[in-house]
C-alpha cells in the first residue's frame, strides 16, 4: 500500500471529511449562481457579505448545539432549548422595555443576568428531572418544551415586545474589531465549552457516562452530578442564543423565537458525528453541522429557490449528509467497491493439515 493511498484514506475517513465536502459544495453552488457570493467587503468598518451572514446567523444555533452536544454525549437529549431561548429572550426584553432608559448599560446587564439566572433554573429543573428523579430525558425535557413556550407567551402577554436599546442590540447586530459581535460571542462560548470539557476531565467523564452509565458509576463517577451539569450548561447556552436571536431583531417573540431550534441543534450534533446513543462527542463537528444547516437556509434565499421546493431541497441535502455520516451506509459503499488489497502471501507458510 502506497503512503499516498493511506493518506487519502486517512483524510476521507475523517469524520469531518464528508460534512466539509457538503459545506463546500453548497458554497460552490452559491458561487456559481452568483460569483460575488464569496466576496467579503469592508463597509463602515464592518465585514459585510453572505459568508459573514452565514456565520453570524449560525451563531445562536452553534451555541444551542454546543450545549446539546454535551447532553447527547451523556446519552440524553434536551428538547427544551427552544423554549429556553424564548423565555430568556422574553425576560431580557421585558425587563429592558420597562426601564426608563433602555440604553443604560447597567439596566441591560441586569436584564441579562436576570434572564440568564432564570435559564439556569430551567436547566436545573431539567437536570433534577433527569438526574435525580430519573425520568427519561426525552420526556423530562418535553415538559419544559411545552410549558416553557407557554411561559414565554405569558411573559410577553402574547405580544411581541419591542425594545429600543443600543447595548442590547449590540449582542445581535453590533460589531467588534470588524466582526459581528454575535460571531465573537459564539467563538468565546465555543472556547469556554472546549476548555471546560477538554482541558479538564469533564469531557472524558461525560463520554464515560454516556458510553456506559453503569460502568462509570462502578468506577466511582458521580454520574448524577455530571448529568445535572450538562442540562444546566445546555440551558445556559440556549439563554445566550436567546439574547442573540432577540437582539438581532430588537424584539422578543414568545411564539417564534427559537421555534424548532432544538431539532436543528440535534441535527447539527448528529451531522458532526456524535452518536445519539451517547458517548464520544465532537464539538468541531457540531459547529460544522450548524454551519451546514445555516448555509442551507441562506442558499435558499440567496439562490431564490422557490419556497415550495426549498423544503424538499433541504430535506435531500440533510438526508445525504446523514447517510454519508452513518457508519453502516459507509461500510456498504465500501463493500461495493472492489477490494484493492493484495491477498496476503500464504504459500510459503508452514501448515499442518490432517486429511479428512
Amino acid at each position, binding site marked *: 500500500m502506497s503512503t499516498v493511498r493511506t493518506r487519502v484514506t486517512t483524510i476521507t475517513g475523517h469524520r469531518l471529511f464528508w460534512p466539509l465536502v457538503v459545506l463546500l459544495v453548497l458554497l460552490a453552488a452559491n458561487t456559481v449562481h452568483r460569483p460575488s457570493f464569496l466576496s467579503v467587503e469592508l463597509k463602515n468598518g464592518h465585514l459585510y457579505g453572505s459568508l459573514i451572514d452565514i456565520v453570524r446567523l449560525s451563531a445562536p444555533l452553534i451555541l444551542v448545539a454546543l450545549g446539546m452536544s454535551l447532553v447527547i454525549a451523556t446519552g440524553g437529549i434536551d428538547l427544551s432549548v427552544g423554549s429556553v431561548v424564548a423565555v430568556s429572550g422574553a425576560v431580557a426584553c421585558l425587563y429592558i422595555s420597562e426601564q426608563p432608559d433602555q440604553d443604560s448599560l447597567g439596566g441591560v446587564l441586569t436584564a441579562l443576568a436576570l434572564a440568564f439566572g432564570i435559564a439556569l433554573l430551567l436547566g436545573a429543573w431539567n437536570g433534577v428531572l433527569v438526574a435525580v428523579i430519573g425520568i427519561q430525558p426525552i420526556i423530562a425535557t418535553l415538559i419544559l418544551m411545552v410549558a416553557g413556550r407557554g411561559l414565554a407567551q405569558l411573559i410577553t402577554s402574547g405580544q411581541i415586545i419591542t425594545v429600543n436599546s443600543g447595548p442590547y442590540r449590540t449582542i445581535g447586530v453590533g460589531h467588534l474589531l470588524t466582526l459581528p459581535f454575535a460571531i465573537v460571542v459564539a467563538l468565546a462560548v465555543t472556547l469556554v465549552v472546549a476548555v471546560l470539557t477538554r482541558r479538564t476531565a469533564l469531557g472524558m467523564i461525560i463520554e464515560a457516562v454516556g458510553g456506559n452509565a453503569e460502568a462509570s458509576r462502578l468506577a466511582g463517577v458521580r454520574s448524577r452530578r455530571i448529568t445535572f451539569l450538562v442540562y444546566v450548561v445546555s440551558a445556559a447556552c440556549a439563554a445566550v442564543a436567546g439574547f442573540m436571536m432577540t437582539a438581532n431583531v430588537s424584539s422578543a417573540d414568545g*411564539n417564534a423565537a427559537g421555534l424548532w431550534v432544538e431539532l436543528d441543534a440535534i441535527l447539527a450534533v448528529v451531522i458532526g458525528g456524535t452518536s445519539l446513543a451517547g458517548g464520544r462527542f465532537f464539538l468541531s463537528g457540531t459547529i460544522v453541522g450548524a454551519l451546514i444547516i445555516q448555509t442551507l437556509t441562506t442558499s435558499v434565499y440567496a439562490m431564490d429557490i422557490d419556497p415550495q421546493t426549498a423544503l424538499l431541497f433541504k430535506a435531500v441535502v440533510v438526508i445525504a449528509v446523514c447517510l454519508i455520516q452513518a457508519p453502516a451506509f459507509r461500510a456498504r459503499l465500501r463493500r461495493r467497491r472492489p477490494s484493492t488489497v493484495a491477498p496476503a502471501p500464504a504459500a510459503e507458510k508452514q501448515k499442518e493439515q490432517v486429511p479428512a
Partner: protein
Amino acid sequence: MVHIRTTITRRGLGALLAAGLLATGLSGCGNSDTGGDAGGTDKIVLGFSQVGAESGWRTANTNSIKEAAGAAGIELKFDDAQQKQENQIKAIRNFIQQKVDVIAFSPVVESGWDTVLKEARDAKIPVILTDRSVDSADKTLYQTFIGSDFVKEGRLSGEWLVEQTRSATGPVNIVELQGTTGSAPANDRRKGFAEAIAANPNLKVVASQSGDFTRAGGKQVMEQFLKANPKIDVLFAHNDDMGLGALEAITAAGKVPGKDITIITIDAVKDGMQALADGKFNFIAECSPLLGPQLMDLVKKVHAGESVPTRVETEETTFTVEQAKAALPTRKY
C-alpha cells in the same frame, strides 16, 4: 439488571402520562371554567377554537372575540389549538359532544376538515369560519366565513404601488417577503398583489421568499435579497413583522428604508403603524383582528335560523404615512 430496566420504563411511562396530563391541562384551561350541560340556560353557547397565540395580532383577535361575546351575552367556550390541527379537531368534537349552539373556529390549515365538519352538520350545529377559510368543495359544511379578504389586501397593496409608480419610466424591482409557505394569507396576498401590479409592466417581482411571518425570518431573507440584487426599489412584505425585520437588514446595508426602498406591508399592528408614522414604511393594508362584534352578530343570526351571506368581510382599511400619524394614538392593538 432486569428489574432496573423495568423500573426505568415504568418511570418513563409515568412521566409520559404526567406530560400528557400537563399538555391536556394546558390546552383545556380555556374551557375548563365552563363545563356542565350547555343547554341549561337560555344563553347562546358558542364554541370557539382559536389557532393559538402566535402573534400580537392573534392576541388582539382573541380579546376582541372574548369581549364581544361578553357584551353580546353569549356564553363562550374558548379553546386554544396551539397551532395543531389535531387539537382543533379534538376541540370541535368536544363542542359537538357538549351540544353547543354554534361552533366557530379559525382553521390552523386549509385542508382536512370535511369529516369533522360533517359530524357537526349531522349534529345540526351551525359552523362559522373566522379569519381563515377551508378548502372543502362542499360549501354547505359551514354557514359563513367571516374574515379579512387576503386577496383584497394584496390587491390594495398592489394598486397603491401602481398608483405611486405611474410616472416611473424604467423598471421597478420588487422583492416579496411571503408568509409561511402554503398558508392561506401568504397564497392570497401574493395572488392579489400579483394581479394588481400586472397593470404596469414596469413592475417586476425579482425575488420572493418565505420569511415565516416573523421578524427574524424577514430580516434574514432581506439580507440575502440585498446582496443578490443590487437594485431593489420596493419591498412588499406579507405582514408588518417581516417588514420590521427587513428594516434592520436595509439599515445595515446602508440604505434608508422608506426612501431608497419603498416598503409596503399588511396587518397594521402597533409597531408597524409606528414605523409607518415614522416614514420607514410607506403603506399598510389593514388586516383587522377586531372581528368580535361582527362575529357575535352572525352567531345570533345563524342561531335564530336567519340566512347570512356565505362570505362576510371584516371591516378594514388602508393607511398611508399621514393617515397612520392620525390614527396611531387611538389604535387598540
